[in-house]
């Protein structure tokens, strides 16, 4: 395992000191920088917004570094407590939440945050912890317990209602369980039984959620409503062309045709101004992060590390696919942010925490092996 000792690589000294992984941090830094530039442009030069986002990134980086210091074993210890506490918070949101259409926010007087965002990391963490001391491939009982661990928060978040986040968390849970070694036969059976639940899901969905799904299948049906967003998003991307309209020249985003251009549709705003070339660079960064995460997962020394890093890095990539898929019309508009780019607090901090955990697993192993 000599490849863990990589003293020749840049920042390796500092990296080792801070338990961070330069191969993960550098692409993330590039993405956040792209995000800041795009927010600056799509807000027509609102420095205030950029500074707020920068502050969140700073908080995120500090969180990431702090978590990277934590020994994975300690992560394991805290996982059940954090998980249960956040389930409790979700219950609070359901009872006393604040927000517009969907009550997702918990007002803690000092900060307002979305417990559902926390769940995005806690579910893979909890599953990795759960499987850490179980022989793999897991027994059916353990799989069922794991599914329960996933479904409890998923249903609570669906009730908020935040279908997008609920599905994403469900997805990250599924990834973790699959990585744990569940047989594909069992998985397929699960998928089919989940598919059979779709009518029930449909009935329990809110009108606007149904509308979005319907619009996804027939965007022209409502060119002024939810189909409008997708249409305008494609127009923005398409009019960007290969080289883009140039920094600060994205008319679609700037003039308000693209909705949520700093948050859910930030990819569109970026693609319009920087073109396919920019998109290649950005998407490659995300791909690199995912592959790096998987590489760490493969080299991890225990099941906890393997499942945690694998699930988390795949989850981040799934977020990217969901967000980008939404703005190019692959998937319905569900309201999912683009990792490390979208304007917003909780998501930025939890994503950095995710990276922090991956790095914690990676860097502590190396030390252990030395």
């Amino acid at each position: 395992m000599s490849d863990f000792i990589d003293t020749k690589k840049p920042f390796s000294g500092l990296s080792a000191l801070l338990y961070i992984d330069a191969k993960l941090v550098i692409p993330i830094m590039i993405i956040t920088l792209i995000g800041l530039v795009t927010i600056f442009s799509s807000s027509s030069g609102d420095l205030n917004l950029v500074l707020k986002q920068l502050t969140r990134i700073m908080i995120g980086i500090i969180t990431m570094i702090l978590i990277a210091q934590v020994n994975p074993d300690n992560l394991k210890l805290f996982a059940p407590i954090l998980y249960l506490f956040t389930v409790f918070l979700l219950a609070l949101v359901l009872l006393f939440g604040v927000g517009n259409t969907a009550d997702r926010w918990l007002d803690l007087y000092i900060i307002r945050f979305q417990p559902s965002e926390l769940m995005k990391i806690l579910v893979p963490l909890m599953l990795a912890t759960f499987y850490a001391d179980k022989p793999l491939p897991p027994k059916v009982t353990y799989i069922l317990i794991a599914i329960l661990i996933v479904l409890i928060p998923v249903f609570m978040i669906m009730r908020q209602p935040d279908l997008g986040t609920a599905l994403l968390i469900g997805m990250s849970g599924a990834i973790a369980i699959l990585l744990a070694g569940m047989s594909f036969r069992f998985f397929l059976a699960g998928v089919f039984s989940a598919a059979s639940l779709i009518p029930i899901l449909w009935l329990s969905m809110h009108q606007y959620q149904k509308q979005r799904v319907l619009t996804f299948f027939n965007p022209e049906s409502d060119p002024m409503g939810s189909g409008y967003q997708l249409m305008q998003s494609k127009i923005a991307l398409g009019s960007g062309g290969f080289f883009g309209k140039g920094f600060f020249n994205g008319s679609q985003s700037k003039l308000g045709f693209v909705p949520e251009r700093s948050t859910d549709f930030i990819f569109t705003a970026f693609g319009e101004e920087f073109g396919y070339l920019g998109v290649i660079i950005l998407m490659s960064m995300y791909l690199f992060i995912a592959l790096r995460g998987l590489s760490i997962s493969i080299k991890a020394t225990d099941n906890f590390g393997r499942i945690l890093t694998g699930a988390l890095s795949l989850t981040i990539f799934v977020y990217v696919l969901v967000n980008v898929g939404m703005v190019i019309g692959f998937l319905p508009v569900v309201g999912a942010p683009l990792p490390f780019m979208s304007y917003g607090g909780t998501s930025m901090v939890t994503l950095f925490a995710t990276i922090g955990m991956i790095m914690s697993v990676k860097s502590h192993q190396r030390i252990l092996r030395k």
Partner: protein
Amino acid sequence: MKTKARKDSIRKRKNIEEKYSWDRLSDSDHERKSHKARALIATVIVISLFLLYMVKLYRVQVSDHEYYSVKSDSNRIRIRPIQATRGIIYDRKGSILADNISTFNLIVKKELIKDKKDFLKKLGLLVNLDKNIIESIEKQYKNRRLKDITIIEDITLDDYSKIAVDQYILPIIELSPKSKRRYNFPESISHLMGYVGKVSNNDLDSSVVKIHEGMTEIGKLGVERFYQNILSGQPGFEKLETDAKGEVIRILETKEPIRGRDVVLTIDLELQNFIYEKVKKKEGAVIVMNPNNGDVLAFVSFPGYDLNLFTKSISNQQYTDLLNDIRRPLINRATTGQYPPGSTLKPFIGMIALEQGIIDANKHVNCDGAYELGNHKRPFRCWKKDGHGDANLSYALTQSCDVFFYRVAELTGIDSISEHLYKYGFGERTYIDLYGEKSGLIPDRKWKLKTKALPWYPGETLNVGIGQGYFLATPMQLTLATASLATNGETYTPHLLLGDKNNKTNEISVYKHKNNKFSTLFKHPDYLEIVKHAMWRVVNEKRVGTASSMKKIRNIEFAGKTGTAQVYNLDKGKTGTKRLQDHALFISYAPFELPEIVVTVVVENGGGGSATAAPIARDIIEYYMDKKSTSVSMYE
């Protein structure tokens, strides 16, 4: 820090090792391999999905770039036309017939309406909301492309000031300025002027008008239509960049509109109004034309209608009322009304017979009140039951003897009559500068066979000889034909345009009469003199001429010919019964020696030409001669 963490981790590792037996972790090599396989599958899936996305993004961003670029621009860029000021229309003396006034639309921005019911309730306190207005507001409210709702069109500042007093009730309504066409004396000039209205699909298909990008209004009828391309100018535009809400961010480009050219008509407004006041209670047409150049001095089709009704959106009710009006005010009788000319055709029939050598000045026909034709059971009657006795052409014209012309017509024959009537402009449009002119009808054998599938009967020739039967002429054609007599064959295309002027450069272009000069060759000036003298006798020979009982005009003598046309007309009323209607006609020119004007009068159901039509012409001639000294055209 490093060592502490290291110690910690080693300690925890030991804890775990103590807690669980090594047996349970002994399978870790298998687990590692199994996980590696799954992670590699995941890697393949990740890369595949990445590639799939990149292909889709390539399609959108690179392959379909052109398509989306156009969409993006059409999203962002709005063209706002700036209407050109329409040219002003003057009469020959410089009086304004049509100009533009600033009016206002009462509008409200849709986004400011929070509660539609409440808005309508408050609006009802300010303006009189009838059903049409509410309907139109609802319609505009639903149209998502509209940002503003026009509540009332064309209100004046005075109207608005009344609303403004109480505007605190509904502060969101506002005025949007616009230019509107205004017609002075809208009824008197209605048929020659026409009006402007919104560009319609018919206009877009029309080949005679040029529709510029952004034009919203267009001349629909009359001079407004015929000189549309001169009057309208060219709209300018503003290329605007707007945001998603439609708010203007900046102006990218501006092109100023080109103002329309001002137009001067040959019409003498005072004369026109004088005539219209005289005849507006009747139905018919009066035309006054200068035969020496074709200038139409007065062009009256009565009754007229209020042109200004059409410049705002005329209500359906008003329009239906006009359409259904039994007096049919929307019909331009001067150029589209086709009448049997009755005895006013006789001078031309006489001329043809003279020129063809059928008759001469001394040819006499005995009139005993009726004319027998071959095997016709009933004789053809003269209007004078007792007959005129022995009559030559001059006397027959003066007395309007029918029998004489029955005979002449029979002798000349329909072929010759129809062929030579074209020479006077009958059977063909006069090409006055108005659209929709009718060409009247000169019947002949071919025509009858074609339209009625019947041969020509000799009796029908007799009817044409006295201007009855199938023969039809418009008042404009009668005017042109009379002019050819008055000027000994020199005629000009009748026209309403005197000239036009570029309002900016003052560049003037005058209508060139010489280009439209036509000569009708008469074989013998003597023949013309016989007819013209007879027309003088009609007016001036006491107790003989059919129009001689009128009061003389001081110092002026004029010539004319009366006509009374009997028409079987299907009354389009509910009864469906046939009603006999007499049209009164009179053609004339004055002064007799050096004609300056030709006056044609047609009064529908007017009774006798001598009793109804001739006095109108006499008064017009008197008025014209009185005012002549003060008549100075803008272009003279």
